[in-house]
């Protein structure tokens, strides 16, 4: 399943790479080389990373680098032009909502006319390409990212091979996802509104990519909109909690290296995946060690980097990199997931109804 997703992501990247006008100048934020910009400091002298930040601009950038890019980290001008087009199309769709033609209506009309129901184009299900909600409920990039992928190390932008134990766990996970649902455990920790994990809370998706940083002397705190997660990062010489304490978001300790906040996190339960929504890829292990770096490179930009070390799961370390930006008017809203998770009951109810139908059909057979 993961391979197919990444193949599709690769196909997207190729399409995106096809045509792009020179939009490199469209990024309004200053670069690191702009000597006139000075990193702001808090009144107590720490680099100031505060504000609400979003990874929206990296939505659509392939997680792993398509093989044809090799070790190239940035798009060419032509490739960027094409991505710019996609960004503009997405923004237009949010504003106008696209056409009113609904696949559900097309289905009904086809049935009424006695015509063949249009073939499925997507992975949503049998029959017509069924979109669960109109796309304008989503959020999109404001400017095209220059990156060929989010993974930047190893140099080919591809995650190192996973270990045999991790492959086994991944196979088991995919098997539970393919079979008829037996309980809530057959869904991701995100679907269950438990957590997306540290990586899954920042890797951009189709909406809800916001996080907020608040600092105090001796602390940096990060709150993530989905699933109302928060990490309180003490700064200084504190040691990690003992190995008997485990948590979903781990135990973080921070320190400054120049203007960069370095966050070292251990004590993970594991189980969530280090990927989209904490579910793409194999489950991580309790030996996961994450080192993140947050460097403010402009008033409205932080360069984010996460190095993953999980020897039980991956045969080598790997690193993800992308910027998060501040956007005018962008703020976080409460995302009380579990409190409103009617979908979980509904999905389970659907599974029981389907199973009952199957059982009745089976019993009816002569």
């Amino acid at each position, binding site marked *: 399943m993961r391979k197919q997703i990444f193949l599709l992501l690769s196909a997207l990247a190729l399409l995106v790479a096809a045509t792009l006008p020179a939009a490199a100048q469209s990024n309004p934020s200053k670069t690191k080389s702009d000597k006139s910009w000075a990193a702001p400091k808090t009144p107590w002298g720490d680099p100031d990373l505060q504000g609400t930040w979003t990874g929206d601009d990296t939505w659509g950038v392939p997680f792993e680098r398509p093989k044809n890019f090799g070790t190239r980290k940035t798009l060419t001008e032509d490739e960027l032009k094409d991505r710019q087009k996609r960004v503009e199309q997405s923004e237009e769709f949010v504003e106008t909502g696209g056409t009113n033609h609904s696949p559900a209506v097309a289905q009904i009309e086809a049935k009424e006319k006695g015509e063949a129901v249009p073939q499925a184009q997507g992975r949503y299900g049998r029959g017509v390409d069924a979109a669960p909600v109109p796309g304008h409920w989503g959020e999109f990039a404001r400017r095209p990212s220059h990156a060929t992928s989010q993974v930047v190390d190893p140099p080919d932008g591809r995650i190192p091979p996973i270990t045999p134990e991790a492959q086994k766990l991944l196979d088991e996970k995919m098997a539970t996802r393919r079979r008829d649902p037996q309980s809530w455990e057959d869904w991701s920790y995100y679907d269950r509104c438990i957590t997306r994990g540290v990586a899954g809370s920042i890797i951009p998706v189709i909406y809800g990519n916001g996080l907020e940083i608040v*600092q*105090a002397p001796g*602390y940096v705190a990060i*709150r993530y909109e989905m699933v109302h997660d928060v990490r309180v990062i003490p700064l200084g010489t504190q040691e990690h909690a003992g190995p008997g304490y485990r948590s979903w978001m781990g135990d973080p300790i921070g320190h400054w290296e120049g203007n960069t906040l370095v966050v070292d996190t251990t004590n993970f339960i594991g189980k969530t995946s280090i990927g989209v929504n904490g579910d793409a890829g194999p489950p991580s292990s309790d030996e996961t060690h994450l080192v993140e770096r947050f460097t403010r490179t402009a008033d409205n930009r932080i360069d984010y980097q996460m190095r993953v070390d999980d020897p039980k799961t991956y045969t080598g370390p790997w690193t993800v990199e992308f910027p998060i930006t501040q956007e005018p008017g962008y703020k976080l809203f409460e995302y009380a997931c579990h409190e409103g998770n009617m979908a979980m009951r509904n999905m389970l109810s659907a599974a029981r109804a389907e199973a*009952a139908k*199957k*059982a009745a059909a089976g019993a009816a057979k002569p």
Partner: protein
Amino acid sequence: MRNSFHTMILSATCAAVLAGALPTPAQNAASRIPRTPDGKPNLTGLWQSIGTADWDIEDHGAQAGPFYQLGAAGAVPPGQSIVEGGEIPYLPAALEQKKKNYENRWKMDPVVKCYMPGVPRANYMPFPLQIIQSQRDILIAYEFATTNRVINMGKKEDAAVDTWMGTSNGHWEGDTLVVDVTGFNGNAWFDRAGDYASDSLHVVERYSLRDANTLNYEATIEDSTVFSRPWKISLPLYRHREKNARMLEFKCVEFTEELLYGDLRKKPAEGK
């Protein structure tokens, strides 16, 4: 001669104290509170209330819990009211609802389901809370269910939607942080005893450092559809001072799934 000199010093000292030139013991305590570079009291720290307000914010004696199998471990501990005046001034119909809540509290208490506790309850749960006070806004992170809220200290913002933790706007009045909370969805309770309010709830909190390690917390509760008048709770929060004190994680959704979805587990009759 010496006596009158001493008397003179004593009189001068008294006069100085009376004139406010010398710090009194009370002022000494106040001036010893930690302050931020811009002179505001610094509330940053890991805090927690002591007591049993989360069980019941009014006076309550010890009681059996819902499961006899837990014996003393599952019983309700006693506590004295944190409500000024002792009792919550419910309107008559609302009091009937509170009684219904109480009778069904183990099923109905949203916190049992790992739903967010709302304000003010989050501040007196038996779990720590971390205050992060920046030069601008203030974040409160609660260990229970990773609940968190940001107190906007800038220009007041209205609530766009109703939420569990409300929308918080704060400002300083001298050394007291005053937080105005609106936009509640009416789903949270005040405790495990069924005390509740509606989505008209309006809470005004006051945080002030009594000393470096004690935070006085007060909240005025207003909801004219439930209560006959505004009422107030107050209790101290205490700073965690153990070595390596830190906020840990209590993500409780997993512990509630059997409770919430167990009836929809795959049935044996469904076979493979």
